[in-house]
């Protein structure tokens, strides 16, 4: 293939969309490397500290889309201090000089400041899409900057973010000449919304396909919006409350019927049971339904609703639906691919639907992800009172394509033996309060060849497991261990043997002067492979060994 002109190679490579394919291609030979490199438009960086902005730019000079992930996954559950790191500003700053054509930025668990958003909005003329998931650090002023300056913005998607509310109505900062919006999700915002500005924005953006509203948008405004935008494909309602026989309800029903394109429905952040029936007319078209925030709907109403949704492929629902409701889901939604059941009250026990793991394994061999959270983390099987090893063992044996697994309940080393033996495609494993000895962790490290992310908390794995096969960590993205038996000495030894890893010890004790002895347990350790050595933005309580 060496005698193909570069343009041809480039054209062929254009058909490769997956990062892994393009990565593989670049390893074939030098000329392929060069062609692939200069034609790469989209880069995914799973750990923002594995490389630096400069190296990214040097490696791929003409990128238009960047995806970055920051904090480790357990940050979602408050195990990582807020200021641990993951700042996006240095990346944006570096890209300003080199990526004039940047169009898209997708960030997960990163710290995004108003300054970053401001800089982003002013520096990239063609900027089109910003997706932020579980990020923090900005206010509505940052959103105002985006609205004011990104003339061709198509997508603004904020997922599960606590945005600090400031005065100044960011929605009204979109100029009247701005008409390019296709996707807008501000469901997580808690503050007031300039409803008039919202309505006008929707009215002048004919390509708007996805719209997810916040709680502050009442039903009557939703109804006006739907009249303006019947072409919506993805709709997230805000508040969905009305009195039973009000005019609003009647209007809503007649408007909803016209929204024939809606395939994905979510929201219902404020809702009451009697309001749901107005949704029925569009249920038969839905492929995706997210009711996980709809605490105002009880199990009976949820079940009635599901009966109308025969084409669902994805369902996120609260456990208030109960076992009977889930049975209705099973019999109604024959095309279901993804089911997520959320606790309606995380502090109550006993309402969660019971799932027999072995039955799941038998009937659902195509699962790619299985995450079971038993609220009491050391609970044995309710029937046999034995550990849950066999159940999870059945899962990994039967679900040959399983890529992600989260364990809970009473578990010994046996479950890890099964995982090491059978979970050949496993990429991410989350362990909590499980295992008996180092053997457990070793089974996993030895057996799961495709393992990329391993996160462990409150399990009795120590230095023996940590240090047995240090080369393994270079094949993985990261390892998190908290409240385990690993000591400072063990971490130091690992860091010494593997200079290509950053071994971070997070020590949140006030007494920083108290020197932690080598034989003392480390409360939190996070290690990851990196090309650029220790990071310069680590806070005081993070020691990179």
């Amino acid at each position: 293939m060496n005698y193909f002109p570069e343009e041809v190679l480039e054209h062929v490579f254009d058909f490769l969309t997956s990062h892994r394919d393009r990565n593989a291609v670049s390893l074939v030979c030098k000329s392929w490397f060069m062609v692939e490199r200069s034609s790469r438009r989209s880069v995914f960086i799973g750990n923002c500290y594995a490389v630096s902005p400069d190296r990214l730019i040097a490696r791929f000079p003409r990128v238009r889309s960047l995806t970055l992930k920051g904090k480790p996954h357990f940050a979602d559950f408050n195990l990582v201090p807020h200021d641990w790191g993951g700042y996006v500003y240095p990346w944006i700053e570096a890209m300003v000089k080199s990526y004039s054509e940047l169009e898209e930025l997708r960030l997960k668990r990163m710290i995004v400041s108003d300054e970053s958003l401001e800089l982003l909005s002013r520096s990239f003329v063609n900027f089109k899409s910003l997706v932020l998931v579980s990020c923090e650090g900005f206010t509505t002023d940052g959103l105002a900057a985006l609205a004011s300056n990104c003339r061709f913005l198509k997508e603004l998607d904020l997922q599960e973010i606590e945005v600090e509310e400031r005065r100044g109505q960011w929605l009204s900062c979109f100029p009247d000449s701005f008409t390019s919006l296709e996707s807008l999700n501000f469901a997580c915002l808690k503050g007031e919304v300039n409803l008039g500005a919202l309505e006008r924005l929707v009215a002048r953006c004919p390509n708007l396909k996805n719209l997810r509203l916040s709680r502050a948008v009442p039903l009557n405004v939703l109804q006006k919006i739907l009249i303006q935008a019947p072409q919506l494909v993805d709709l997230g309602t805000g508040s969905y409350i009305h009195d039973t026989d009000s005019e609003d309800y009647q209007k809503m029903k007649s408007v909803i019927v016209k929204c024939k394109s809606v395939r994905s429905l979510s929201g219902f952040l404020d809702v009451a049971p009697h309001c749901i029936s107005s949704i029925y007319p569009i249920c038969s078209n839905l492929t995706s339904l997210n009711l996980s925030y709809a605490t105002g709907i009880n199990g009976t109403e949820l079940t009635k609703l599901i009966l109308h949704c025969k084409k669902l492929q994805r369902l996120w629902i609260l456990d208030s639906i109960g076992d009977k409701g889930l049975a209705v889901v099973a019999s109604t939604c024959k095309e279901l691919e993804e089911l997520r059941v959320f606790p309606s009250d995380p502090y109550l026990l006993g309402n969660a639907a019971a799932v027999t793991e072995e039955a799941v394994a038998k009937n659902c061999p195509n699962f790619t992800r299985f995450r079971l959270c038993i609220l009491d983390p050391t609970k044995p099987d309710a029937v046999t009172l034995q550990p849950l090893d066999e159940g999870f063992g059945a899962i990994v044996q039967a679900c040959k394509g399983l890529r992600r697994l989260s364990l809970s309940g009473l578990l010994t080393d046996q479950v890890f033996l099964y995982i090491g033996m059978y979970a050949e495609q496993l990429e991410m494993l989350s362990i909590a309060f499980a295992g008996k000895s180092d053997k457990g962790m070793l089974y996993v490290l030895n057996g799961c060849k495709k393992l990329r992310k391993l996160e462990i908390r409150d399990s009795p794995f120590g230095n023996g497991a940590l240090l047995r096969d240090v080369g393994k960590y270079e094949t993985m993205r990261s390892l998190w261990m908290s409240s385990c038996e690993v000591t400072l000495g063990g971490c130091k030894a690992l860091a010494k043997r593997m200079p290509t890893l950053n071994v971070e010890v997070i020590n949140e004790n006030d007494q920083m002067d108290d020197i932690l002895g080598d034989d003392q347990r480390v409360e939190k350790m996070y290690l990851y492979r990196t090309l650029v050595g220790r990071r310069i933005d680590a806070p005081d309580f993070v020691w990179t060994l």
Partner: protein
Amino acid sequence: MFWERKSQMEGCKRKEEDCPKLLDLITRNGEWVINGDAQKLHGFTEEKKLELSLAPPGFQQSKQPGFLQFPPSTPAQNLSVMGESSQPCCNRAVRELHTADQNAFSPPPAKTAVTNSSQKRTAPAPVVGWPPIRSFRKNLATSSSSKSAYESENVVPKKVSGEKPIENERKGLFVKINMDGVPIGRKVDLKAYDSYEGLSSAVDELFRGLLAAQRESVSGGNQNEKVEEKAITGLLDGKGEYTLVYEDNEGDRMLVGDVPWHMFVSTVKRLRVLKSSELPALCLGSGKEKMPIDNATK
């Protein structure tokens, strides 16, 4: 369930020394006991029921093995404290205990022998970051369900039927309302009104007499001078002597009247009638009186 004391304590020596002990924990035979069942075994249940506490009735209190014990606090506080992170270990233990107080974890009762002999690491009843639910979702769950908690004062876990605690449409929606200068509060059923005007006149009716009586007693209770009952007006436009404010489901103090009526009804937790003259001095908006945490953003 028996607490694996040794392995925990060794590593956590520093925590134990540094954190103040407010109450002695009662250890039984040198072993830490977590659950209510074990307490029953030792006859502590009755004692527990008689203890004064700040928690709503029906909460199970679990003795927390560990370092601290605080008097239990209200659910909203507990749950909001759970949202914190980056605290020194000492506070983290505190947080664990706070949530212990209204956590309904009930470890398996009888098979303690199994867990003991396998020498497993056993979990304390409530733990930081467990269950693994994103803080964002937790906050959402608490903000929408805590309203019903406040109204009903009954947060005993509901049964398998999956019924949500409060059906706002069928029962009344009673919220407390207090007025400056009147020591006794009232309750008002918001479901009985469909507009702010209706609420405003209801407030007038509720407090007109009480206010007059209060003034009368202040002025010495001279029976010859009967204080005239004056109508309470201008509650919504800032022009009256008093102004109506409310606390919403996020603990913020808000002026009544800004949002559509039904949105107000779905977020209001309690009402207050304040003297208009004192309004500028108050911190309206993000009062954050109940939530000790700062915003996640910095």
